[in-house]
């Protein structure tokens, strides 16, 4: 992959922007199109692009496979844990209003949606990266004539 100078330079500029855009989509999901699913996929796409350009091993050094396993379980636990937290506060499962019952602008709902979307982001991004690692590790690196 060393001779693809243009690809490497462009990818180096693009990857941080892709990751930044993922977080924009994540936290702007209340106001415009977007949310955890889309942000997770975009974040995973940044890692996948890095792996395609700089090699799978470099990507595994940056985002170790153990993070993937931890991330996918953390996301589900965060989502489910939000529901359990509402239980303990005395409301129904995933009834976020209980987080700030006095609020006049539905702050509780906003907190709940934020937590839940973070869980979705964790799981989706980790699973996508994990699937790519699983498939990508079973074959040799792309040879130059495949490009």
């Amino acid at each position, binding site marked *: 992959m060393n001779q693809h100078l243009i690809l490497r330079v462009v990818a180096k500029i693009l990857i941080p922007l892709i990751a930044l855009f993922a977080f924009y*989509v994540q936290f702007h*999901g*209340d*106001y*415009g*199109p*977007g*949310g955890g*699913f*889309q942000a997770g*996929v*975009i974040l*995973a*796409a940044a890692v*996948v692009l890095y792996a*395609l350009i700089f090699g799978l091993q470099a990507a*595994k*050094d940056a985002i*170790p*496979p*153990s993070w*993937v*396993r931890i991330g*996918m*379980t953390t*996301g*589900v636990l965060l*989502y*489910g844990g939000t*529901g359990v937290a509402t239980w303990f506060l005395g409301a129904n499962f*995933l009834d*976020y*209003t209980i987080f700030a019952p006095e609020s006049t*602008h*539905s702050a509780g*709902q*906003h907190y*709940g*949606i934020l937590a*839940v*979307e973070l*869980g*979705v982001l964790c*799981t*989706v991004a*980790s*699973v*996508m990266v*994990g*699937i*790519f*690692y*699983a*498939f*990508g*590790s*079973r*074959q040799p690196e*792309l040879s130059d004539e*495949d490009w």
Partner: protein
Amino acid sequence: MDITVPVLFMNISLMAMLVIVAVAIVRLRSLFAVVMLQGVYSLVSAVWFVSLDAVDVAFTEAAVGAGISTVLMLSAMLLADRTAKPIPVGKNLGSFFVVVITGLAMFYAIADMPAYGDPHSAANAGVGMAYIEATREQVQVPNVVTAVLASYRGFDTFGETVVIFMAGLGILLLLGLNGNAGKWQAQPNGQAIGGPGPSITPEVKTKPKPVKKTTAASKRKVAVKSKAKPKAKPKSKSKSRAKAGGKS
């Protein structure tokens, strides 16, 4: 709802492009081109979703359909063949009839479809309109889709997250996070256990930890079921593998 002529023209041309891309996907033998055309198909349908004002769906289609799934299909294709073998026409006749009959049934059903944007359609008349009206007071987020997805239908979204988690878990159990599932070998108590992998990689050989664990476990239980062992093994092995990968 009135659709202006340019929008109608654009919708028709987008649908025509979808049909052309679909026919090209069926006709082509080069799997690389097929995967790329699937990405094109996803992008064109994303544009069409935008024209239908379903921006969130379009976003998802563009990110998942054109982005990630193209990469995943490519990496799956690299494990398989680059070209598809031509299938004789006789073998395709059965599926051809299924497609024709299903297509005719769909054309028959078009007459019962509600008009685009019909306020009395089933999707708009029931709980959908109630969500749109209540979001302004109950959730107070500008994007109603987010409110419905995360708050009103939070339980559904929880299910979807768990489905994605299960998909990832299944892939990891089948292939292994490092692609090493089915290739591990070990000799606890002197007997060989493991798949028909060609050789133990030196990385695994230098790790005495998992072997020790099982011998300790087998000492505790004198009668160890031979079935239980291979299940316990890959877990500890992949763990040590992942750790080694993370350190290097």
